[in-house]
């Protein structure tokens, strides 16, 4: 359903939702970070984009998988630790971040459902905020099959029309939230719909960066595995891992045991984020490392996102949020790299 919500009524709607845990972007110094909101007045949707995408709510940096402790018969007692019941709402999700979750859904779902991921995913209701202007000068969502007002992955999409929001509910969960405060929502008029269309068209024009002829890139990449191209491009990479940690689609993880005490035995098995950009990501226990240098790791990141994922899931593993470009300490620009790939050898 499509409704209009006056901005001054917005805090009242949030108040009706207080039985849920509410996450929203909050300002921390110069940055925006998703935090739990305790007062409905604290939500400020006047923001650009967060440093870490809402992926960190669904797939946290550190997650306990199971706990083990000593038992009387000498064998360790193992207790599964699933995410707790926590019906949540995430406000202010940008369309690129929401689309990214549909991509990680395919990885954590499909043949095998990751219990931990899905428990959190299913209990989080995502309320998106369309981008009237690009949050970052490095946004390029249009090039990767997304848009500033894409509805993919969202339960509700809100668009800022000035003094009111255009609220589109896209799923049953979204409808439920709107119904909790029926009186606050109005029916949209023709002018509202016209304003919405204009904003949507304008927002697309404002995106400055693009990857031209992106369809040429996956087949081109296939032939570039052994190319010296990667050595040149990776010269300045300092293998810090920021690009992958901030990326809303990246999902590699490591599992390790944290032993609190060895006798009596007590510990946890935790899952943490990992990144293909660390030198030891592919270290084998024999000491062999198939990706020992920066060139092979940069190649891995680009090919995983723009060739392997395309072959497997028919989607680019990138939604154009631009975080990797803005935050790379040495200015490695994924758009520039892809442009060079497309034109390589010509």
């Amino acid at each position: 359903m499509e409704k209009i919500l006056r901005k001054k009524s917005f805090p009242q709607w949030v108040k009706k939702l207080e039985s849920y845990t509410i996450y929203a972007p909050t300002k921390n110094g110069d940055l925006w970070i998703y935090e739990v909101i305790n007062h409905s007045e604290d939500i400020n949707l006047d923001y650009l984009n967060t440093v870490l995408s809402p992926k960190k709510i669904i797939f946290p940096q550190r997650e306990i998988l199971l706990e083990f402790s000593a038992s009387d018969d000498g064998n360790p007692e193992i207790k599964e630790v699933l995410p707790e019941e926590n019906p949540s709402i995430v406000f202010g999700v940008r369309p690129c971040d929401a689309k990214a979750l549909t991509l990680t859904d395919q990885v954590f779902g499909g043949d095998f459902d990751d219990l931990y991921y899905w428990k959190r995913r299913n209990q989080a209701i995502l309320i998106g905020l369309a981008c009237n202007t690009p949050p970052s000068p490095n946004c390029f969502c249009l090039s990767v099959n997304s848009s500033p007002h894409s509805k993919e992955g969202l339960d509700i999409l809100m668009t800022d029309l000035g003094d009111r929001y255009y609220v589109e509910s896209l799923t049953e969960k979204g409808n439920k939230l709107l119904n909790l405060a029926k009186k606050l929502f109005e029916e949209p008029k023709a002018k509202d719909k016209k304003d919405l269309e204009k904003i949507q068209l304008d927002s697309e024009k404002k995106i400055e960066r693009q990857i031209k002829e992106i369809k040429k890139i996956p087949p081109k990449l296939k032939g570039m595995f052994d190319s010296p191209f990667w050595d040149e491009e990776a010269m300045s990479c300092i293998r810090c891992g920021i690009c992958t940690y901030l990326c809303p689609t990246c999902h590699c993880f490591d599992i390790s045991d944290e032993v609190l005490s060895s006798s009596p035995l007590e510990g946890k098995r935790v899952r943490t984020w990992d990144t293909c950009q660390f030198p030891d990501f592919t270290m084998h226990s024999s000491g062999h490392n198939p990706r020992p240098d920066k060139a092979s790791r940069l190649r891995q990141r680009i090919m995983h996102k723009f060739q392997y994922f395309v072959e497997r899931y028919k989607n680019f593993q990138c939604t154009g949020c631009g975080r990797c470009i803005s935050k790379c300490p040495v200015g490695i620009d994924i758009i520039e790299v892809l442009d060079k790939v497309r034109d390589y050898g010509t």
Partner: protein
Amino acid sequence: MVSLEELKKEAQMLLEEGKVKYIVGYERSTNGLMPVPAFIKNPEDVERLVWDPSCIYNLTRFLVDEKRRKEKEKKPDTRPVGIVVKGCDSRAVVVLLQEKFINREDVFILGVSCENTGVVDEKKLAEKLKGKKADKIEFSDKDHFVITSNSEKIKIPAQEILAERCLECRASFPVISDVLLGEKVERRPDEPFKSVQKIESLSKEERWAFWKEQLDKCIRCYACRSVCPMCYCDECVVDTISFAVTADTAAEEKAQKIKWIEKSPDSSENFVYHLVRAIHLAGRCIDCGECERACPLDIPVRLLNKKLEKEAKELFDYDVGFDPEKPSLVSSFKDEDPEDFIR
């Protein structure tokens, strides 16, 4: 004023005469104001080099990468690498020389002086410009910067947008160089450790609250470590899986490797990681500020290292990164070292 043309000429000469393998400098990037590291191999490419207040990076990191690359090559090219350094960066080169990590003949130092100013802090600039996009920034007069924004030229006093560490600068021109461009303008700040003193003046509980809030944000991406030229250990004590393994390493050895710090970003693990890193950098950190610049969560990690730089000076009269012949801070001692804290 440093002449960019002179820098390019020097670079060109070095490459034409084959005196260096390649030159590490700064060049314009494809997005935004900040430059990116440039690796110039051919004399005609020197045109790409730039030098302006946006050149904030410490390129010394790439000397470490170069050494690693040489180690893997069977017949390495033994010519030196040319590198463009500012005053602070040159101190990093001195520390690498001090520790015999690189030899003097491995590096050809193209020093540039910051003269009266320094490099710009992107965030301070953005605040000053209030939404206007900066396309270019140049040195101007003795202590101003000129910013070009959409063909509008805006002149700002440098002091207002200099990086924090430039306000505490202890080396405004390279302390070691093969070629030096620009004038050697001495600048001795009145309070070289002001940012540290600000934290020290807080009460114990306030200090704890400050550091807890900051370090709880840490996602352990290790960017601070990756960008630091001094963090060159093959096997960092934090990465418990990265110890050198060969076919001969016994299973028992692998199993008994001590795990000092867990991988996950728990509050106390984050503290221990940052504190250990600061202590390992005592007497080695020269405050290039890269760790803080690289941190995606804006954690002021530079302050931990700066604190120890202050203590090195105050307790042991040790100046970091000025003399390549000096022994390192923690493997030297004086009879007069203070021991009033010892029972």
